[in-house]
């Protein structure tokens, strides 16, 4: 049958397996979550057997562990410590090299190769994070050429969430549990007793083309669509966390001097883990390295964190010397100033910063606490 865009089809587990092979035939390196180092990380897979079949990850504030599922779900995990950020915005990227001979310097542009990458089984929050970073790296006045090239070589198979973890709050950030845009294909895994099916939605011409290579597929029947809707809606209702985003920007920016920031400072150790696991954090620093002779020099871009002191250094001193100012910078950036900068929140509600915080600081709790505190401190008009 002719595959069309924005239509939903029914796939079997075998079809998912062929999907991976078709992508490989099209020279895509197929990347998917795998169990590794007692976590679920992204790695290259050859077949769907390498997916974390029957495994899931259990989240708490400051804690992460793996657990066997009762079923054999392919995509039954939440989010691991890594995000897809590393594929488009690598933790370490050579920008350029220079050579100095007799005081004259020549620039050798870096040509770190990009690859055709198919990201398979990434969650909607993860996909949303890519769309957030697109705004930074390719939709502004200046384009990050490496990001752009890699982005143009990306194929995305997202998986809608039918379950959620303790740390999830994508519903608050409007980024999940169902992917609405930005994917080539979106899969919803449906396990109903022994009936293991997948509803797949085409989201792009490339997605249509790939799916057209799978033989004998049909439009998803009504019962599958109904089950899909029920499962996604149940996930939506079981969000681990929630925040109110209404007037959130104003709430935070109007309370930059709120005493609560100092309370967070008592717990935050300024380690920067939250920024490293965050799928949207985009700050970077540059490392200059030189050969012993001084002739060759290299500029490497590295991920940076607003939790480091050097981050705000200007000659003679550090602007954000206190931990509270650095925490405030990070949180107000994600939930307030990001909106001014990029017309979207900088948070996709994946909850990684909650899980990987060594002291279990929960960004949703902190926001709710500030909100309640501000509400409490509002002057109340009393009748005379």
């Amino acid at each position, binding site marked *: 049958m002719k595959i069309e865009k924005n239509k939903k089809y029914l796939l079997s587990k075998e079809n998912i397996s062929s999907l991976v092979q078709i992508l490989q035939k099209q020279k895509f390196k197929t990347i998917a979550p795998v169990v590794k180092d007692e976590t679920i990380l992204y790695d290259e897979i050859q077949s769907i057997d390498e997916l974390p079949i029957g495994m899931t990850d259990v989240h708490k504030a400051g804690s992460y562990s793996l657990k066997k599922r009762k079923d054999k779900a392919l995509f039954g995990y939440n989010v691991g410590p890594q995000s897809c950020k590393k594929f488009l915005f690598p933790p370490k990227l050579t*920008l*350029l090299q*220079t050579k*100095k001979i007799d*005081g*004259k*310097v*020549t*620039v050798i*542009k870096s040509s770190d190769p990009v690859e055709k990458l198919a990201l398979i089984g990434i969650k909607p929050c993860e996909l949303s994070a890519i769309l957030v970073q697109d705004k*930074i*790296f390719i939709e*502004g*006045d*200046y*384009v*990050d*050429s490496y990001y752009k090239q890699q982005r143009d070589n990306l194929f995305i198979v997202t998986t809608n969430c039918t379950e959620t973890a303790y740390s999830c709050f994508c519903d608050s950030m409007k980024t999940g549990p169902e992917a609405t845009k930005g994917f080539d294909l979106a899969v919803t895994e449906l396990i109903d007793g022994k009936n293991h099916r997948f509803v797949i939605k085409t989201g792009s011409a490339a997605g249509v083309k790939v799916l057209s290579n799978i033989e004998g597929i049909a439009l998803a029947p009504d019962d599958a669509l109904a089950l899909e809707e029920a499962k996604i809606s149940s996930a939506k209702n079981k969000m681990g966390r929630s925040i109110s985003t209404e007037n959130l920007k104003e709430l935070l*920016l109007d309370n*930059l*001097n709120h005493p609560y920031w100092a309370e967070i400072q008592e717990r935050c150790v300024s380690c920067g883990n939250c920024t490293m696991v965050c799928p949207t954090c*985009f*700050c*970077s*620093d*540059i490392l*200059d390295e*030189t050969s012993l002779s*001084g002739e060759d*020099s290299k*500029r490497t*871009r590295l991920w*940076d964190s*607003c939790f480091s002191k050097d*981050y*705000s*250094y*200007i*000659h*003679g001193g550090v*602007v*954000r*010397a*206190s931990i509270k*100012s650095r925490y*405030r*910078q990070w949180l*107000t*950036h994600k939930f*307030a*100033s990001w*909106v*001014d*900068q990029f017309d979207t929140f900088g948070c996709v509600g994946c909850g990684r910063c909650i899980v990987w915080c060594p002291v279990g600081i929960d960004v949703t709790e902190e926001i709710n606490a500030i909100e309640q505190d501000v509400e409490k401190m509002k002057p109340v008009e009393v009748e005379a």
Partner: protein
Amino acid sequence: MMLQSNNTAIKTELTNEPFVPVMYEIKRIQRETEDTFTIDLILPDKKKTNFRFKPGQFNSMFVHGCGEVPISISGNPIKNEKIVHTIRVVGTVTRAIRRLKVGEYIGIRGPFGSHWPVEKAVDKNVIIIAGGIGLAPIRPAVYHILEHREKYKDLSILYGARTPDDIIFKKELESIRGRFDIDLHVTVDRADNKWMGNVGVVPTLAKRITSDPSNSIAFVCGPEIMMRYSAVALQQYGMSLQDIYISLERNMKCGIGLCGHCQYTGKFICKDGPVYSYETVKDLLKTREI
């Protein structure tokens, strides 16, 4: 709080390769003070540069094997056969630049950032207040106004330095003093009795301005405290905050809003700034560690 920006991104080859510097050759190095010097750059092999910038913008200067540093452009925006920077030695890269000799190369990325609103100042009195090295980013605006002198009304320049020895652009200031169409006041914070000029902090010079404050625009550049005190002095003189422009400084690394370091709530100083109307940043200036 959205910050108003007057940034007009100049599209150059940098738009696509924003991290790759263009190499320039040092043509001339001139000492200004004990720790400050002015450096002229030209394209190697006598190639003509098509470098254009607006007063107040900056470049990222790259030294092979050392790193990059954002430095405002201090040259004449109308004459573009060379790029001029006035640099104070304050760190590793600026120290490395001082060690370079004529004929050696420096990488340039830029120009970046917003500019002094010289267009908005047309038909107005222009008041320039600069402190220390802060005269360097504002000098291109002075050049611009002098090149189009008939378009502007009174031009007052108030300049303050730490001591008489710390005054930059001495010869130019001396030649300006002789002009009838510029009201120049120079002051120092401390001096011995050989100094015949004014002693006192630069905001106190605001009371010397004689032009009509209601039709004036002010460009203020220097240490942040000095800019805040100058804004107070300009208000006492009768100006409103939206007519006062200042140039802010934060850790600018990439120059194009991609590395995140210079964030100032919703804006990137490197991209939307460094020049802002005082009105738009007055609340942030009161907030510590922002």
